[in-house]
């Protein structure tokens, strides 16, 4: 696999960076990244990953574009209202970068379909909107040894971490052993979320994904980043491996 002349021009601002170069750009072209959720986080992450030249991007989402999505889900537009999010997203990403492959999966992930799906990708970005999916994605990536970049948000606050237990780092269950009981923690629909927060967190996810693919910089796999948009504070706390982690014993997956 090589870069075409057009690609060399398109990615010239990357290629000129010492830490990326032609070699790094080729790594991005060979990379396959799966976005779980084509919503608030998946939108900005998808836009930048497509622009960056990630060769294959998968979009998984079962929803259609709703008017209330457009305050933050910038991969979609008024013109694509009512369309499946993965189709709307595919059009947007293809328009930014027709050189890349975009696979659209109009479905929810479940214990049956998740392993075959993620096995086709190198890196998974979790931008889902519920705890069940987040624990399922963690467990599946744990089994499949896939690096997972996880971001989440609530009102004015976002969290970000990279999960790669196959490289000796903690998993999501080491951080949060169990999901809250259903109904205890309100979701974005009930609690609201600052639209631009999705941009901040989704773009950070894309940035960490690109760093993991290129193997540059410092990973956030042993930290949790907490961003408070109101205080304009980014804080990092330690995220050690939990020796009592039940990541195998309590798996959602069989």
């Amino acid at each position, binding site marked *: 696999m090589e870069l075409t002349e057009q690609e060399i021009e398109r990615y010239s601002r990357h290629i000129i960076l010492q830490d990326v170069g032609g070699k790094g750009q080729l790594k991005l072209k060979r990379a396959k990244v799966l976005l779980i*959720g084509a*919503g*608030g*986080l*998946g939108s900005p992450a998808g836009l930048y990953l497509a622009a960056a030249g990630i060769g294959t991007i998968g979009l998984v989402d079962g929803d259609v574009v709703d008017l209330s999505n457009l305050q933050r889900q910038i991969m979609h537009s008024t013109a694509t209202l009512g369309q499946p999010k993965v189709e709307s997203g595919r059009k947007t990403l293809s328009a930014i970068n027709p050189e890349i492959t975009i696979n659209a999966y109009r479905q929810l992930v479940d214990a049956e379909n998740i392993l075959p799906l993620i096995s086709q990708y190198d890196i998974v970005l*979790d*931008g*889902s*909107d*519920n*705890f069940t999916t*987040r624990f399922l994605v963690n467990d599946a990536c744990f089994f499949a040894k896939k690096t997972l970049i996880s*971001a*989440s*948000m*609530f*009102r*004015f*606050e976002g*969290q970000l971490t990279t999960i790669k237990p196959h490289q000796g780092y903690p998993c999501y269950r080491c*951080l*949060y*052993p*169990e*999901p*809250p009981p259903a109904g205890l*923690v*309100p*979701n*974005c629909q009930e*609690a609201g*979320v600052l639209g631009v927060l999705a941009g901040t967190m989704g773009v950070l996810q894309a940035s960490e994904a690109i760093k993991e693919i290129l193997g540059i910089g410092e990973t956030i796999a042993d930290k*949790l980043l*907490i961003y*408070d948009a*109101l*205080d304009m504070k980014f*804080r*990092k*706390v*330690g*995220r*050690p491996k*939990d020796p009592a982690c039940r990541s195998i014993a309590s798996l959602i997956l069989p």
Partner: protein
Amino acid sequence: MIRVRIPTPLRPLTKGQGEVETKAGSVVEMIESLNSTYPGIKDRLCDETGELRRFVNIYVNEEDIRFLTGKDTPLKNGDEVSIVPAIAGG
């Protein structure tokens, strides 16, 4: 004085304050003291047996108390405590 960072989901209980102060000598004392000033906060942090809920983390400075001495983790003047619940919005 010890500063305690209150996460967005718990701020309705602290009248919107993102940070409160305490003089508690340990995390468990801090929870009791917060609960007397802001009733209801203990229920959000601890289950019915008084154990910390498994989707809420408390950090003293940058360390998760589950990897220190749990709720008995001592606090001293100048410490910063962060309460960090799991959030799932995407």
